């Protein structure tokens, strides 16, 4: 019964999300697009986190994907859809190469290296003036899908669907066992036949490809890319805060985290012209100190306690 209820709720939420353009105006639709984008990024960050690896490099892969799409159109003459497909391929390939080098690193060493790599990508793109347009970036001829707000919203929703699907698949497949085992105890995992490096590499490539895809969608829906816009640290920071608040190691946590934080920061943005991002910093600090399992973790604990009492 519980499961059916959940399924019905998920279905209703999905229907609502798909039909949003039918009754929402331009501004709410824009807000929804932001929320969806960050939700998807938070999911990909969490998927890698399930193995215990913290990436500070989301913005790097996002930016690579964004530039892959933009330059695919401008330099290789790709069509809009092809350029979108190129973003995950490029980001995934880059992740494969990088992964070979850095997935033997653990803990803070891994995190710091991902942060440094994101900066390196930004600086490289910044400096290859002739090819990437340098600091001024590149502008596409136009926005994809004729610039229709509804169609672009659905495009972003499509990106989210990919991230949600992948996250759900990770929860239901061997990935769940591999990543949890690696996070809990690498030695025990090895003795049970888990090829740690291979699973980490697969996870890193998949999550990076999705981040690249989202970058591609971003470029196609705004029509331009500059190093400072697509490698913006917010693409790392916000997903992290979202997943932490909602509850890590789950699909549902980042989803709720994104809705809560996305809407509240949008509301704050209207009130505070500067520094509305402070809420993200505060949330990260408060969550880490007082509820490391996030809201979903709290809810789960509460439920379990209630069940225990009912027994």
């Amino acid at each position: 019964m519980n499961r059916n209820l959940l399924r019905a709720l998920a279905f209703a939420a999905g229907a609502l999300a798909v039909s949003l353009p039918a009754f929402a105006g331009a501004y709410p639709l824009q807000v929804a697009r932001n929320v969806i984008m960050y939700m998807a990024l938070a999911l990909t960050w969490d998927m890698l986190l399930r193995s215990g690896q913290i990436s500070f490099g989301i913005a790097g892969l996002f930016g690579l994907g964004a530039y892959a799409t933009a330059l695919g159109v401008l330099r290789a003459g790709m069509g809009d859809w092809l350029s979108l497909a190129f973003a995950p391929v490029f980001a995934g390939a880059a992740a494969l190469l990088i992964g070979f080098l850095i997935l033997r690193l653990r803990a803070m060493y891994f995190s710091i290296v991902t942060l440094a790599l994101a900066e390196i990508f930004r600086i490289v793109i910044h400096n290859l003036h002739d090819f990437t347009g340098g600091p001024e970036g590149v502008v596409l001829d136009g926005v994809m899908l004729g610039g229709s707000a509804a169609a672009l919203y659905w495009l972003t929703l499509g990106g989210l669907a990919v991230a949600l699907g992948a996250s759900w698949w990770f929860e239901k497949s061997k990935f769940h066992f591999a990543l949890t085992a690696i996070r809990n105890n690498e030695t025990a995992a090895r003795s049970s036949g888990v090829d740690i490096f291979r699973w980490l590499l697969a996870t890193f490539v998949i999550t990076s490809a999705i981040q690249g895809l989202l970058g591609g969608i971003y470029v196609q829906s705004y029509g331009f890319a500059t190093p400072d816009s697509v490698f913006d640290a917010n693409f790392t920071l916000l997903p992290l805060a979202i997943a932490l608040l909602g509850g890590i190691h789950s699909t549902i946590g980042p989803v709720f985290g994104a809705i809560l934080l996305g809407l509240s920061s949008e509301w704050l943005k209207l009130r505070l012209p500067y520094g509305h991002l402070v809420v993200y910093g505060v949330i990260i600090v408060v969550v880490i100190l007082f509820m490391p399992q996030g809201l979903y973790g709290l809810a789960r604990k509460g439920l379990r306690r209630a069940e225990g009492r009912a027994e």
Partner: protein
Amino acid sequence: MTKLKTEHLTRAFLGLVAVNDVSFSMDEGEILGIIGPNGAGKTTFINLVSGIIMPSSGRVEYKGRDVTYMPAHERARLGIARTYQLIHPLENLSLIENVMVGSIFARRHGLKTARAKAAGLCESLGLSGLDRDTSRLTILEIKKMEIARALANEPEVLFLDEVMAGLNADETRELIAQVQTIARERKLAVGVVEHVMGVIKELTHRVIVLEAGELIAEGPYEQVSKNPRVIEAYLGGAA
């Protein structure tokens, strides 16, 4: 038939030789005791043959194949399994999921098959309440879970590193009987590390004794326990 053997296996840690020139072999269906005072190198020895750490020199052979430098996960797939002296539960997986891990990765079974096999293994070890968190298990249950997880690899060689430690007399008796049944039914070669000599005496067919990394005696327990070098090693260790 020889399942596993080592030749001159040696491992040094920054000058301390934890395992020194150990050559031994284990046959199908044999339960081998590995004994020695604290710090003798028993756990290090198991780490070496299971691939958790790599040797400084020497050779490990499994069913005639050189596996000296093979990574641990590949050895697990070939059929070498082990448990850990310090328990290693996967605390974010339930009891049955812990056991499934071996089946999923060492045997590459699908999740359904793995679950069915894990349930069978748990039952044979007398484990119930399979969906519980590992935080709700007793020591005995955790130890059994770890044995089940190792058995889920469907190994031919199994090492048990002090699985009886921390159990009371009844629990120990129960687990001894189960290990014997499992070894017999699966024709396993089992290496058992224990400090309680009663367990070694009852469980093993043959014993090797390590002291300061070296193999100092070998043979049936009755015989080895009268060996003056062994007695001295233990007395020396106790003093």
